[in-house]
């Protein structure tokens, strides 16, 4: 009886996983552009493989094997987004007509503009000592002279991180 319940659970998980995989595979085959295809493939890389492997892990021969199968799912959850990111970067880098298909936000420039704005605001705040005091309290910093330095470092960090991400894609 328990064996049959296990089988039913496995079948339910695996079949729903296969349905998800079919949707993803058809998407990879039929969609028009890489970014769209990447969307379909991400479905397969996360939900499809998770459902299928959880299903097979339920009726695995022993516990250790089940843990290993679930480890594959964990691995995919970490590595799938990274490979999507790299593929997207490759596409943005190498496609010269990318404006026909997608709009690319240059987070590098945006961060630079934001940092410049913050700096100008800070300078404006420094001109009026009272206003600087208020701003310092609101931001939760101690209102001392290191204030500006801390803020500068933060914005520089943000700019660096944004530079690493390099671009964000809005596929049509």
């Amino acid at each position, binding site marked *: 009886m328990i064996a049959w319940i296990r089988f039913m659970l496995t079948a339910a998980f695996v079949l729903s996983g296969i349905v998800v995989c079919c949707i993803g595979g058809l998407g990879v085959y039929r969609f028009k552009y890489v970014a769209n295809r990447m969307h379909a493939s991400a479905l397969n890389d996360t939900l499809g493989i998770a459902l299928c492997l959880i299903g097979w892990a339920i009726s695995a021969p022993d516990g250790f094997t089940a843990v290993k199968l679930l480890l594959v799912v964990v691995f995919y959850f970490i590595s799938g987004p*990274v490979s999507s990111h*790299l593929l997207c970067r490759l596409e943005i880098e190498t496609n010269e007509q990318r404006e026909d298909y997608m709009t690319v936000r240059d987070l590098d420039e945006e961060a630079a503009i934001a940092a410049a704005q913050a700096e100008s605001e800070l300078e404006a705040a420094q001109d009026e000592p009272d206003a600087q005091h208020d701003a310092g309290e609101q931001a939760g910093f101690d209102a001392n002279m290191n204030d500006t330095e801390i803020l500068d470092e933060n914005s520089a960090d943000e700019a660096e*991180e944004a530079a690493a991400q390099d671009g964000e894609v809005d596929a049509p």
Partner: protein
Amino acid sequence: MAKAWKERLERWLTEEDSALERRMIAMQTREPDEESDEPDEATVIREAQERTVEQDVAERVHAWKERRGSKLMRRLYCALCVCVCVTMIFLLLFTVSTLPRFGSPNHPINNEVSARYIEKGLQETGAVNIVTGMILDYRAFDTLGESSVLFTAAMVVLFLLRMDEKSDQYSPLARVMREMPHADTYYEPHNDVILQKAAVILVPMVLLLGIYVVLNGHLSPGGGFSGGAIMGAALMLYVTAFGFKSIHRFFRYKTYQTIVLCALLTYAVSKCYSFYTGANGIHSVIPLGTPGAILSSGLILVLNICVGFIVTCTMYAFYAVFRKGEV
């Protein structure tokens, strides 16, 4: 019928270039044209006087190759590819059809050698995995040769491709690259934060998987070669994410030499011991242990670890040399 096909084939082979090919050829041949247009008449005349017949012929052949030859070669290449593939498919299918049935008792693999391995393997080597028992005990000398071949191949690649820092041919790009943090190669994007965050989690996981495969070589499929390849892949991932400057903190050319030489020497010494005892009929002091336990099967575990080290370092060295020109 045959004539029509021949005509069609000839037309196909000598057909006019398609638009894309014309553009490619134009791109390839543009520069010499422009350069030949540039110089004034006196130099042209002088060059024409200096030019010999051989040069003329060579130039014509070159021009023909660029205009016609590449296309012809590509078409011929496609046709030959299809021919070779079809021939190979039929040859292999024919061979398979004459093989004895899988699992039949009078199959040639069912001889006294494999029977001996199956019957006495566990008792004599202590390894549950019979394949490891074979390659690291019965045929350990062979495996030593394989490891040495791998080592030699890596050495030859290093001889051929390694860039000497002091020579003139050491590229300036490589010199710049050495100092850049997180640089993999010069033109590629560096310092990809997303990849680095993933690598921080994944590299230890992959290394652990490799160590597991190496240490369980005598209990389950796997062993030194496969586990070493996995650990080498982990090192490659680390380099791709963090660059050569980071990996040089713990893995240099000297580390590579030390690890590989120590592993090969350990392998050779431990195998010498078992050859000596085996040949003279002396009882080996190394216990075989209970089959199935992790510390069992005598020297096989040590040999697996040695092979794993060699393969890891060699995989990484190949990658680094082909990528950058030095380990």
